[in-house]
């Protein structure tokens, strides 16, 4: 037996120095090469287990078999869109908020799934296949960020579902996924001259330490967990936690006429991020885009003469629709305004979340618009 005391300080010093050196070297190399994006694109989805039908998002991973992460590479790598595009496929991508993602809806009940269930075909016998690229936060910049990644997957048509809540300029950086992807978002700001401050403090500020193995441990763990949850996704087809009970949309409303800090009577178009929609349209190039003003819940309770619902005072929403329609006409965009399409009973837990039947109604109107667009 070797006594610790007899080894002397130099032995321990060497051990400590070598350990420290190795630790620093590994972290430095990781930080220098910053392989997190490459690592994110390595995925067992579409290989060992089927790709997810919607982007990963989950606040209760143990029950949802799904989790929220910030690596768009990992998110897309887990999505079914990453699979090879069949030659006869007419690829439709749907972007938007939680109503497109399908909050409280099963994968087979979402807007994309409803469109797919119609088995639409183009005039040239290409099978229309819709892909759900919605993501549950309300920000057009977030949608644009997702669209910028989705363009790699050769879409033939883009359907962008929007609602007023996603428009205010100050809300564009509210989405955590936007805040945690500063570099690609700044690229978009720069490329499309978006009215978003690239130095906004809400962007995460990464330094070299954040790029090291230690700094990226959380991101790496999330990517690994996403792969593990793939097993449960494949085994159960579940990707969301469904509560037994939830509160329906608010019927009685506060007599508050403000909207996101804006006061009546005029909603200034400059306060809304139509420039982001324009950027998306430019990004799409020759690929057609349909902008859809999504259905909202219309309350009939107390103060419903002032507000449509929890989100929107009437004056703001009415003016938003006018601005939206005007912008569509002015820029020759393909637009669809389905704000009052769905009856109140077909909303679930918020003014924009639809039941399977409500989603089906919404999908039918979009299907008609698609057919009109490609088979005029």
């Amino acid at each position, binding site marked *: 037996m*070797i*006594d610790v005391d007899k080894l002397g300080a130099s032995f321990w010093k060497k051990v400590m120095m070598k350990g420290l050196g190795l630790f620093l070297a590994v972290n430095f190399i990781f930080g220098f090469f910053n392989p997190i994006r490459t690592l994110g694109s390595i995925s067992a989805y579409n290989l060992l287990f089927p790709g997810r039908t919607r982007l990963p998002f989950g606040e209760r991973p143990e029950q949802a078999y799904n989790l929220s992460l910030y690596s768009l590479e990992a998110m897309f790598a887990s999505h079914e869109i990453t699979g090879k595009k069949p030659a006869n496929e007419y690829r439709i991508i749907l972007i938007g908020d939680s109503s497109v993602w399908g909050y409280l809806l099963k994968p087979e009940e979402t807007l994309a799934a409803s469109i797919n269930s119609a088995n639409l075909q183009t005039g040239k016998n290409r099978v229309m296949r819709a892909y759900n690229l919605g993501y549950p936060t309300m920000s057009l910049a977030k949608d644009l960020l997702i669209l910028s990644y989705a363009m790699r997957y050769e879409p033939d048509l883009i359907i962008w579902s929007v609602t007023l809540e996603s428009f205010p300029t100050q809300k564009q950086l509210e989405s955590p996924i936007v805040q945690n992807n500063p570099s690609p978002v700044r690229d978009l700001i720069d490329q499309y001259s978006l009215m978003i401050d690239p130095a906004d403090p809400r962007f995460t500020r990464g330094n070299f330490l954040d790029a090291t193995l230690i700094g990226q441990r959380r991101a790496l763990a999330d990517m690994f967990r996403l792969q593990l949850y793939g097993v449960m996704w494949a*085994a159960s087809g579940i990707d969301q936690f469904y509560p037994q009970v939830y509160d329906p949309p608010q019927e009685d409303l506060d007599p508050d006429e403000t909207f996101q800090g804006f006061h009546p009577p005029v909603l200034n178009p400059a306060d809304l991020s139509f420039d982001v929609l324009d950027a998306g349209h430019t990004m799409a190039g020759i690929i057609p885009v349909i902008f859809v003003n999504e259905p909202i819940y219309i309350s009939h309770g107390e103060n419903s003469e002032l507000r449509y619902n929890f989100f929107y005072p009437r004056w703001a929403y009415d003016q938003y629709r006018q601005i939206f329609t005007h912008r569509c006409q002015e820029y020759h965009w393909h637009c669809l305004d389905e704000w009052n399409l769905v009856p109140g009973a077909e909303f679930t837990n918020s003014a924009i979340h639809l039941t399977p039947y409500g989603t089906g109604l919404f999908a039918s109107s979009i299907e008609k618009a698609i057919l009109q667009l490609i088979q005029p």
Partner: protein
Amino acid sequence: MSLLPLFITVILASVIGLFTQVRWRSWSLLVASIFFIYWLQPGLPIRHLDFWLPTACLSLVIYSWLLTHPKESPFTRSDLVTGLVISLVMLLIGSTRYIDALCCLTPTPPPTLPLVTVAIISIALIALLLYLIKPGNNYWIYGFSFLILIIFIILKAEAASKLVSMTLRSINNQSVSLASGLDIRWLGFSYIAFRLLHTLRDRISGKLPGLPLQEYLIYVIFFPAITAGPIDRIQRFVEDLHQPAKLSLEMAIQGGRRILLGIFFKFVLADSLAIIALNEANSLQVNSAGWLWVMLYAFALRIFFDFSGYTDIAIGLGNLLGIRLPENFDKPYFKPNLTLFWNSWHITLASWFRAYFFNPLTRALRSRPANLPLPSIIFIGQLSTFLLIGLWHGITWNFAIWGAWHGVGLFVHNRWSDLARSKGLFFESPPLVKKFVTITGTLLTFHYVTLGWVWFVLSTPEQSWRTFLKLFSIG
């Protein structure tokens, strides 16, 4: 135990191992172990119960020591000092209630100091009474063993623990309607009970030497092994305690490696596998037999890495402290038959039951005038032993079936071995055939054990049966 408490534990063990002399090591271990049973005790909704359960644990150990202490061995000053140290530590933990910066070592604020003092005095008075009575016959020991078993049953039977919870809630003026079996979770009591019963039984059979209270207490609540074992024998444990234990480089390296291995097993492998391992909820959600097998395999591996990871950590911490805790796992899933599996899975638990239940029972059955045939004796012995091992995990039908599953499996293997031996099967076979038999046996054993986990992980026989059917795509 999460990573932070584990880190603190490793630091503490290293400090005790490096800087304390033999004499002071025992005192350090005593104080550290007492602190740990309070610190690691899970928080409970019943007021102050997370303080009273560790306190009850200490009192049980003291009474057990008094009952097992040989009449001819006098008590020493060290025993009295140990009693004082226990009281002081309890008072110290109780006083954290009044110190904001320290509050609280226990998950919820401890009771008031006067109440803690009353508890200490009560424990001391009962101990004094036991000392004065000096019970010489074994009835007291049997009675005390029975008391431990009763507590054990209360903790393991949900209906009983719920009843106790309701009683405690009503005493505390807390809502009785919120009572649940989970209200009474006693850190490490299963292992404490095994150690106490071992010493009580060895006292009856005259195998237990007279030990100072300090060493007896360290053995029972030794902090590295309090949460998940292993279950050491006191005679062997005390030998290590007497060894000069200045931490050597070899011990430090061995300990460090085992701790790192344990951390990797528990916090990387087991916790990752937990995501996909079979459980109550996902057994109902899975839609194909193939994925269900994947989830079942994941559970089999998860439970191994979880449990053996904790054991590695405990053994590693023991190494740092100069105590060589016994091994609990020895590549169990690579064993070619169920008997060897149970010689390598939770070894110390199986040994405990072999020594204190199976052997005495089979001896008793053999000596009966009825003269039962050997296969019947083996069947009764193995089935009842494994029923008890099953029920040790919890008093439910599923744990009983899991125990029976293994009892029957062991009996079948025993008969098969006898038959193979008597017919000389495979003895003269070429090495390739022997290898094939070993590989087949390993695969069969692994799958038998893995299928047995279905009973273990699910809560009702109905759901387990449905899962079995789903595994084989029946129905």
